[in-house]
């Protein structure tokens, strides 16, 4: 099991959250801190970049819901990119893709919120 890091990069009013390591229930504080940092820098939309993620279990899906609720309460959009075919299927299975827009590329995600 590897720890999660979530680094924040601003792109205008969008924040790119680079997710690395395993995403599990223990990742909640890493996601929460990244959300706070992005919001403090004025992010109106957050793009989760999963291209550096090693593994996500069902506890990690719960962390995504918590992040989504934070965004909804803050009037922010949440998007995702960098997911491989398996994890795209998992977002479909859990119906999270109905609330988190999944994009093939970072550029596409950023363009959709520009």
């Amino acid at each position, binding site marked *: *099991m*590897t*720890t999660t890091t979530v680094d924040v990069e601003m792109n205008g009013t969008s924040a790119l959250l680079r997710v690395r390591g395993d995403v599990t*229930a223990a990742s909640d504080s890493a996601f929460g801190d990244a959300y706070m940092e992005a919001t403090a820098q004025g992010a109106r939309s957050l793009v989760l970049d999963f291209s550096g993620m090693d*593994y*996500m*279990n*069902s*506890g990690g*899906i*719960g962390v995504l*819901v*918590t992040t*989504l*609720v934070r965004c*909804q*309460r803050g009037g922010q959009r949440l998007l995702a990119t960098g997911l491989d075919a*398996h*994890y795209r*299927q*998992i977002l*479909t*299975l*859990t*119906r*999270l893709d*109905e*609330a988190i827009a999944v994009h093939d590329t970072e550029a596409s995600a950023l363009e959709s919120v520009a």
Partner: protein
Amino acid sequence: MDPTPRSDRDPETTWAKPIDRLAMGTVPAEAINLNVTGKRLAGPMQGFGQLWQKTYRIRFEGANPTPSEVVAIWKREFGSFWPKGQRFYAPFAEITPGEVGLINGEVPGRQVLSTGVMVIYADDESFTFMTPEGHVFAAWITFSAAAEDGATVAAIDVLLRASDPLFEFLLMAGGHDREDEHWKTTLRNLAARNGATGEPTAERACVDPRRQWRLAGNIRHNAAIRSGLWMMAHPQRMIRRPKD
């Protein structure tokens, strides 16, 4: 940190495949099989009520099975740990991603609430259920075990919204407490099965106090209403109830 690849970290085998509608396998004749077949899965984002995160835990005392051993037993004998009056019918040998289980829950008035769950995730130390439309909750429920400070701890983590306004009212009118007792009893029984004792703890936090009023129409799937109507049409089933 453990960089060693583990067989239970392959998303191809630990996660279920996406499905459009649920299909139920063969269950015993005494089971009331309603509100599962043909339903879609519904997670916390599809529910109506406030979003709650609940955690139930028990620290095993008097025995120290490994987390994998605890979860292996939990997967094989899942329904046997439930309180009396609550039945889990599993048309499979053990909890496996993609399998669908049937629930017949006793409710006041000799009624039965028929619903189910799908196993969406399972590895060596945890497994997760997701509920169908019409269930009391739109939820993910994760069952796990871990080693903590020299002892084995079993846990149940629930992320839920009540599915519709009726279930939201019932949860606020004592349903949360009833659910707490259900899972605490389950954990006590699980500990006893592993030769241990312990006192379960329960924590409850409201993650989102808002209700999703655009989803109030979920009530059309309400499993309690549909089960009640079915029981009225089949009154003999109220008399010929299976014994615990």
